[in-house]
């Protein structure tokens, strides 16, 4: 029913993916996937290794182009209003930078050609650091933090870049149970404040209990979104 999809799109859908086929080097990983993300959703994308979760996220972010199909961003959301928490790269593990420098770099998409940050922009970054409980770590070296603290720093950076939507790629990978729960709680709080969350996760049990929708692309060609019937 193309009309209904078009309708939802214009009124409330934040992201609408239509018949996406994704892959690399000619190999199809995800075939004919369609789904809609609405404002305020907490969508959890699950699936096994190699099922194309990361490819899907990179496509949503515009880092990869789909082999076919299209992604439509609704309600005039701009690329500069997206926050992203990527998986840590090897480079970052021995990068000499303070937490403050890392978090501030999330402000880049506000500056345009201006070479420095304004006082108002810095205030946003400081506020986000306090909000995530890393205000006291601002001057510390990023590579000396624990895994959980590093993820919070990267989450604070992502928050500097957005007020509307966060895309998280395996945010709890490598964290201990305590830090995992803390991070999930933080993400849930952000969702409750109105930020749309799209998260990739291995950890199905935990993520399902927090998410409002689950997209399982592990099962071949499954394109359904299971609605959680909580309450």
């Amino acid at each position, binding site marked *: 029913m193309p009309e209904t999809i078009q309708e939802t799109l214009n009124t409330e859908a934040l992201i609408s993916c239509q018949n996406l086929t994704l892959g690399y080097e000619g190999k199809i990983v995800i075939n004919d996937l369609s789904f809609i993300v609405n404002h305020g959703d907490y969508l959890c994308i699950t699936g096994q290794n190699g099922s194309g979760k990361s490819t899907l996220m990179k496509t949503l*972010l515009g880092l990869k182009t789909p082999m076919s199909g299209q992604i439509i961003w609704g309600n005039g959301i701009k*690329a500069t209003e997206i926050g992203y928490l*990527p998986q840590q790269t090897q480079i970052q593990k021995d990068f000499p930078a303070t937490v403050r420098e890392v978090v501030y770099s999330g402000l880049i998409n506000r500056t345009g050609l201006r*070479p420095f940050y304004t006082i108002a922009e810095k205030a946003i970054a400081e506020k986000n650091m306090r909000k995530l409980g890393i205000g006291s770590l601002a001057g510390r*070296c990023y590579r000396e933090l624990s895994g959980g603290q590093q993820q919070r720093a990267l989450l604070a950076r992502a928050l500097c870049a957005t007020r509307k939507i966060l*895309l998280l790629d395996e945010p709890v990978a490598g964290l201990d149970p305590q830090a995992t729960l803390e991070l999930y709680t933080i993400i849930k709080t952000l969702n409750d404040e109105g930020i749309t969350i799209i998260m990739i996760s291995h950890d199905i049990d935990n993520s399902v209990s927090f998410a409002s929708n689950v997209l399982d692309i592990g099962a071949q060609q499954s394109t359904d979104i299971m609605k959680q019937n909580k309450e």
Partner: protein
Amino acid sequence: MHEIIDKLVLYFQFPFVRYAMITGTLIALCSSLLGVTLVLKRFSFIGDGLSHVAFGAIAIATAMNLTNNLFLVLPVTIICAIILLCSGQNSKIKGDAALAMLSVGTLAIGYLILNVFSSSSNLAGDVCTTLFGSTSILTLSMTDVWLSGILSALVVVVFLVFYHKIFAITFDEDFMTATGVKSKAYNLILATTIAIVIVVAMNLVGALLISALVIFPALSAMRVFKSFRAVTICSVFVSVICAALGILISILAGTPVGSTIVAVDIAGFLLFSLVGKIISRG
């Protein structure tokens, strides 16, 4: 000690020695600015590869009897830098293989062209100078000095204006692209600046030794300091001091400028490693 000072005073009465000293430190300054980014982005060898490209271009310029080879060398090196830095992970041939191919290829072709077409009577000397830098600081020409000065100033200005962007692109290029920043444009600026640094620095230390000038100060600073800003500032100071010391020593001892500077850089690196070890224990 008195003798040494007398000798230095005597040398510094010549304007070209003073100018050479100024250019040398300027080149050291701008090459160290980008060193931090190159080391962290795992592009340490890009300086080496690009300088070989520049060598190939110089060979062609020499064969064509161009009066000032910079006008050919600079564009060629910039184009190669853009190809290397901007092709990213998507290309069929991975970064390090592409770099190795390009650097060895251009080195061989350059030497071949020099041998076939050059009319110079002292071919081995020419090649040696291009590869290892001027044997004496005094052979830097006045045009070299001015061009180096202007290009160095340009690099410093670009770095200051784009400092935060350079940090962001070094730390996490994907994040930058994903949040709507045109990271390709900044990669382009970075590649161009690196190419300029390489071409300018070739005058001082020669094609084979440039990497040292770019990499050592950054690595030294990273042993001790823990923020990007402190590492950048420190590597600039290390680089300038090492270059100045190297030039002074080469004047006094009559050693080749390039290799003397690099030797001082190595000493600096060892010193900083030691300090870093002591700090992390204490």
